[in-house]
């Protein structure tokens, strides 16, 4: 037996607790649906003057919504999760971890932007959606393995399936990307809702308060 490994396992529990109620997935699902719908709208609606304003506003809205999502999850946890299973304040990520996350996000955004830029009409257009799907799937698979959460592995499979399946069915990467996030959002919303339902059933409010 290795005592050190057991302590590592204990140290991972609060991390898993973040996802125990399905709320982060549910909010993430809503966010992805918003992103998908936002990128689909210009392709679906007739072109006009609104497009210039829309193109300026949408990036701001998307970035803001991403930043607010974490706050929303915490608010929901205060109302739903903490009274049932206990309050936790997670450690803020250190500077090295923040820099690493920002660097990873920049690399991912750079790859997708580069592919999108060079493939407006070119032969690499077919690579944009599979690349985006693969990158999202890799991130989800990482979380699934690190926190031992099979639901995230399911979402990773969905990301790969959509990433490689949509180009065959659609053929225009702008629409494919929107559909990819729409599909992922719906899947995430579904797994999150199922998890939340199970959590609420298995974790009733305590009858008596703590000491």
């Amino acid at each position, binding site marked *: 037996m*290795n*005592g*050190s490994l057991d*302590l590592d396992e*204990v*140290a*991972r*529990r*609060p*991390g898993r*607790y973040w996802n125990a109620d399905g709320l982060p997935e549910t909010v993430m699902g809503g966010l992805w649906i918003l992103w998908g719908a936002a990128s689909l709208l210009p392709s679906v609606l007739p072109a006009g003057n609104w497009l210039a304003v829309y193109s300026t506003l949408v990036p701001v809205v998307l970035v803001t919504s991403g930043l607010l999502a974490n706050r929303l999850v915490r608010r929901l946890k205060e109302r739903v999760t*903490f*009274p049932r*299973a*206990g*309050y*936790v*304040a*997670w*450690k*803020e990520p250190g500077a090295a971890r923040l820099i690493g996350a920002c660097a990873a996000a920049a690399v991912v955004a750079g790859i997708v932007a580069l592919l999108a830029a060079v493939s407006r009409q070119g032969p690499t257009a077919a690579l944009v959606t599979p690349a985006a799907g693969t990158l999202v799937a890799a991130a989800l698979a990482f979380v699934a393995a690190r926190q031992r959460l099979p639901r995230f592995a399911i979402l990773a499979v969905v990301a790969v399936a959509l990433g490689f399946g949509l180009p065959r069915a659609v053929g225009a990467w702008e629409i494919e990307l929107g559909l990819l996030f729409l599909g992922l959002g719906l899947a995430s919303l579904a797994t999150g809702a199922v998890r939340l339902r199970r959590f609420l059933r298995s974790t009733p409010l*305590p009858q008596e*308060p*703590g*000491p």
Partner: protein
Amino acid sequence: MTADPLHQLGGLDRVIHEPSRLLVMALLAAVKEADFLFLQRESGLTKGNLSGHLVKLEEAGYVEVEKGFRGRVPLTVLRLTPAGRKAYGGYRRTLSGWLGTGRG
């Protein structure tokens, strides 16, 4: 202090070495702070048992207890003190060093 890991083992912190308290310390080391209910659920300890261990950890200066209310509900928030984090880190290093020596 001797560099021999076997000699260091004798100096293991007895307050942390008790399995239930080690579990509580490990849980608190992984978060900024947590409440009593979370620790009770994650550790599987009874209310009385957990309270007893927390008193010992508080007396050792490893855990800080803050009693308050959230709305009308009593809330006991617990966090490791800097001394507690240092002691837990030292305990882990000593133990893993010894286990590493003992292997093979």
